[in-house]
């Protein structure tokens, strides 16, 4: 995860934004795909307008909604207000770690575990992004290419780690296949549509096999 935020910091520096902006994006949005959409828009001089950039960033981070839906019942079966401090930390890395780890942790300790993991992730993310920002200017072409490749590869590996389970495997394969919608839709809309279509098809396939 630190490598992805290191790469993000470098991209922010190249886009001409400030280190404070990098830090606030890490902590405020805390969803790398959306952060990258904004950085790309800034690099292009906000050519499509701020509204379009925001919609693109929200669309690419729309997975926060189903992530929270799937995570909340695992964190607590009781009062939802107990989850409010944990809400800002719902993002890919804490979510993936929580879905894998929490079922084996006593239910009364789960929110505390998630808060600890989330806050640690925030500190690592902010530190890495600032480091990336300040070292970006000193990098050569190869190092820059390596940094740019970190984010897509990291998320691909996160998904790969779950491929041994049938339900995630179906969702990943269907989502990847549905990415072809980019050929007929604008990129931000294509991503959202691919997620909804691929995820729904994967869900229905699982229901058809009686495994949810």
């Amino acid at each position: 995860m630190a490598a992805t935020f290191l790469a993000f910091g470098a991209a922010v520096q190249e886009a001409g934004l400030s280190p404070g902006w990098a830090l606030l994006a890490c902590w405020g949005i805390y969803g790398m795909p959306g952060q990258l959409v904004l950085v790309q828009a800034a690099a292009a001089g906000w050519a499509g307008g701020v509204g379009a950039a925001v919609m693109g960033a929200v669309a690419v981070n729309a997975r926060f909604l189903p992530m929270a839906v799937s995570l909340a019942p695992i964190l607590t079966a009781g009062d939802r207000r107990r989850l409010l401090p944990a809400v800002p930390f719902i993002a890919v890395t804490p979510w993936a770690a929580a879905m894998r780890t929490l079922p084996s942790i006593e239910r009364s300790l789960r929110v505390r575990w998630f808060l600890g993991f989330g806050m640690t992730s925030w500190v690592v993310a902010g530190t890495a992004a600032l480091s990336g920002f300040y070292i970006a200017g000193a990098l050569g072409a190869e190092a820059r290419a390596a940094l740019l490749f970190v984010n897509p590869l990291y998320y691909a590996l996160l998904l790969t780690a779950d491929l041994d389970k049938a339900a995630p495997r179906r969702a990943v394969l269907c989502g990847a296949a549905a990415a072809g919608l980019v050929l007929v839709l604008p990129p931000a809309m294509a991503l959202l549509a691919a997620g909804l279509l691929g995820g729904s098809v994967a869900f229905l396939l699982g229901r058809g096999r009686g495994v949810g």
Partner: protein
Amino acid sequence: MASADLALLLTALICLGLRLAGVWLAGGLSTEHPAIAWATAVAQATLAAFVTLAIISPAGALADVPLAARLAGLATGVVVCLTKRQWLLPALLAGITTMLIVRALV
């Protein structure tokens, strides 16, 4: 307010709203509920689509890296990840190294 700051503020607020809405919707549901299974599948599929587009058809400077290098890096990372369970860092390093080697050769 500068465009970058306004975009950041709006995106952060809406993303927080999405998270809150998810928690509110999920409050009384069990993990076996069909709506939860569907939501999980949509989240994973969206991320898979994002990764696919970012590697096959990237925007910005990553597009300057040849497709063959990107695919070789991805394949290497996935293979290492599958053989070294729970160890993402070695897989990440192997994938990046392979990408750089193929990039230099192509």
